[in-house]
């Protein structure tokens, strides 16, 4: 047992070693060596994770199903204890498998995608990518809030490094900075919440913290608990791109496409959901905080979906779609359906990684073209990519029986049965919008008539094996991935739900069940959301199905709406005017203050010393005998004082 747990400590350490080797010996990495090394380390982590998974399910079911071990005491000051300890329970296990599994596939894909880069550039890329896997695993496996925060910051750093990977392009460097700074705002919330948690409950190690939360003296819904929960959620807003901190994620598409798939779709951006699920016992004690989470998530789902409708960059569409889907997950958490949220994280990891990698294959084949208005009819040139892309899209729009259908439907169903009918309505509307922009995306890239220049069309080349293999695996997962969490109405076991039940038992106990609901309600809701999805498809087909003429007519007819949406509601401009520019002005003001006051004081000190120096210089004649003379004078004065 002991041996095994120490073995699992290697899960995060192996990718760290990979990052160190690629980062330090980048001169020695010839050809694809760096890529193979990075893939091997993540594969090793994945294998260990699978071993851990089987050990975990071998344990008796229930709250005892946890592997928890401490490597050493990291920080112990007074009663404050933050060990370097790891905890594998069903929740972290789910993320562990997603991060290492999908992470491995994306590493393999990257080998092909980055093949045109310089060798040193490739080893830098894979060093960052491995470092990201390490940080993400620390975030997920850490058994206390501080260790989680370490991983939280680590993934933020790697995200920054990889967004601005092509740092010689100005917009990439700026996008990286934007992501980093916006994330800092959220991180302040996380830090404050951690400190407040320690001050209130006296423990930040999860098992102890959850025990402390069971204390009957604590009054659920008290102001302190609500504040802590909302501060945690502010942290999640930053990392998981929710209103009002979502603005960094669309810009983050400046990074290489596999990075968008791994960090900005499948894993890092779901860290906020993970944190909320991890802290579910706390959130369950504050219904108002949960309501806030649900409302923000729902608003984000709709808002980002609308923006996604008119984006022209293939990756931007997917980015807004990611923001929107993350909104769904928060909505699930907000109505207390933690399992549904995790389920959507899992399926989303499959199909959104697939869509990003598919779009990467398209961009790769078109030598860097990202504008969907300049694509079209790619299914003839890239049939394989078209099939997997279509599978991912059907999963994203929630078409039965693809993965997204089950998870999205579970969320909508949970919202409905917790009597949040307005949120449910908006969620269904957002599902329709999702279907619309998904259809538009697939149609404009893959079918219809080709809108690219002839010479560009001739140069299209199919993706190499290292890229197509991960695509097919993810496509299969996107098709069948939904069956791990089949809704109860179908009468089949909900594998994921049962697996995660012990983790959320404490929260569910506090929130209370929603009671039994007839399966007919569930089928009715499913049918309804399917109808909405099909309507979305149909409307998109009406607009885009017969060439571009009709969409152009529509955008002229509703030019105001079109202008506002395609400019993303001018949110970036508003932030610039309200936050960025005043901050710059303030910085300029304080900068001048710094120049006058602080620098003035420093220069004054220097000036005084300088003047004193000029006076004292008189005595420094350089003539030894004059020094001797002054020594004797000094001695006489000293004697005279003593004899005084």
């Amino acid at each position: 047992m002991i041996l095994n747990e120490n073995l699992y400590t290697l899960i995060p350490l192996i990718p760290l070693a990979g990052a160190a080797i690629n980062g330090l010996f980048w001169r020695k990495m010839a050809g694809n060596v760096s890529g193979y090394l990075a893939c091997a380390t993540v594969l090793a982590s994945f294998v260990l994770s699978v071993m851990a998974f089987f050990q975990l399910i071998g344990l008796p079911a229930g709250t005892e199903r946890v592997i928890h071990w401490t490597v050493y005491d990291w920080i112990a000051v007074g009663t404050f204890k933050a060990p370097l300890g790891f905890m594998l329970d069903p929740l972290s296990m789910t993320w562990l498998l997603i991060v290492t599994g999908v992470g491995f596939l994306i590493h393999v894909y990257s080998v092909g995608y980055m093949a045109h880069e310089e060798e040193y550039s490739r080893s830098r890329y894979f060093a960052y990518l491995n470092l990201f896997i390490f940080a993400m695993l620390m975030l997920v496996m850490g058994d206390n809030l501080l260790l989680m925060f370490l991983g939280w910051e680590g993934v933020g750093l790697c995200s920054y490094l990889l967004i601005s990977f092509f740092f010689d392009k100005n917009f990439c460097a700026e996008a990286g900075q934007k992501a980093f700074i916006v994330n800092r705002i959220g991180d302040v919330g996380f830090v404050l919440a951690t400190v407040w948690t320690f001050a209130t409950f006296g423990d930040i190690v999860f098992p102890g913290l959850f025990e402390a939360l069971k204390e009957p003296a604590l009054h659920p819904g008290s102001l302190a608990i609500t504040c802590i929960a909302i501060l945690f959620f502010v942290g999640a807003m930053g990392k998981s791109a929710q209103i009002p901190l979502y603005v960094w994620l669309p810009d983050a598409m400046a990074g290489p496409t596999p990075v968008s798939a791994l960090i900005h779709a499948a894993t890092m951006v779901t860290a906020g959901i993970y944190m909320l699920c991890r802290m579910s016992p706390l959130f369950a004690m504050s219904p108002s905080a949960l309501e806030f989470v649900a409302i923000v998530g729902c608003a984000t789902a709709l808002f980002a979906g609308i923006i996604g409708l008119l984006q022209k960059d293939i990756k931007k569409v997917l980015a807004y779609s990611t923001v929107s889907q993350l909104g769904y997950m928060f909505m699930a958490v907000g109505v207390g359906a933690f399992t549904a949220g995790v389920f959507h994280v899992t399926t989303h990891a499959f199909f959104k990684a697939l869509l990003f990698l598919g779009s990467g294959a398209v961009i790769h084949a078109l030598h860097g073209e990202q504008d969907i208005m300049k694509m079209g009819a790619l299914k003839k040139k890239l049939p394989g990519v078209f099939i997997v892309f279509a599978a991912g899209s059907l999963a994203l729009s929630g078409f039965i029986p693809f993965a997204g259908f089950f998870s999205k439907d579970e969320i909508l169903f949970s919202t409905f049965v917790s009597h949040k009918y307005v949120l449910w309505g908006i969620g269904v509307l957002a599902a329709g919008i999702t279907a619309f922009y998904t259809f538009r995306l697939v149609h404009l890239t893959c079918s219809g008539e080709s809108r690219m220049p002839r010479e560009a069309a001739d140069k299209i080349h199919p993706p190499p094996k290292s890229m197509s293999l991960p695509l097919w695996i993810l496509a299969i997962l996107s098709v069948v991935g939904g069956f791990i969490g089949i809704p109860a109405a179908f009468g089949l076991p909900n594998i994921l739900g049962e697996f995660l039940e012990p983790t959320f038992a404490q929260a569910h106990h506090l929130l209370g069940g929603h009671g039994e609901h007839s399966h007919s309600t569930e089928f009715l809701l499913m049918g309804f959301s399917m109808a909405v999805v099909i309507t979305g498809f149909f409307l998109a087909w009406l607009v885009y199905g017969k060439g571009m003429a009709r969409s152009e007519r529509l955008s002229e007819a509703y030019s105001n709406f079109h202008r506002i949406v395609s400019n993303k509601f001018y949110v970036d401009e508003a932030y610039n005017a309200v936050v960025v520019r005043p901050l710059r002005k303030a910085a300029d003001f304080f900068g001048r203050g710094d120049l006058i006051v602080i620098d003035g004081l420093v220069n004054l000190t220097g000036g005084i010393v300088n003047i004193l120096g000029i006076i004292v210089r008189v005595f420094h004649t350089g003539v030894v005998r004059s020094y001797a003379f002054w020594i004797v004078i000094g001695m006489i004065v000293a004697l005279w004082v003593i004899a005084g």
Partner: protein
Amino acid sequence: MAYPLQNYLVLSALLFGIGMAGFLYRRNVIVMFMCVELMLNAVNLTIVAFAAHHGLNVGTVYALLIITVAAAEAAVGLAIIISIFRLKGTLDVDEYDQMKG
């Protein structure tokens, strides 16, 4: 104790005065160095005289200690003089004026 204490003190004051005068007026660095030694030994003589006068051996031991340290200091001082002579090619302290502020 053949002579009274005053004799020793006067002698050491004379020695110290000669040393000080030489230190101030001579320009040869070796002579200046010898003058420093002279002043040091004048002080030493005072200590030994007082020790004998009070019948305390501690003073004598201190004098021995000072002589030992003075030997070490002489070695260092001579070494410095040698290297500065190599550098400047002269023993005249008035030529050593790089430290002018």
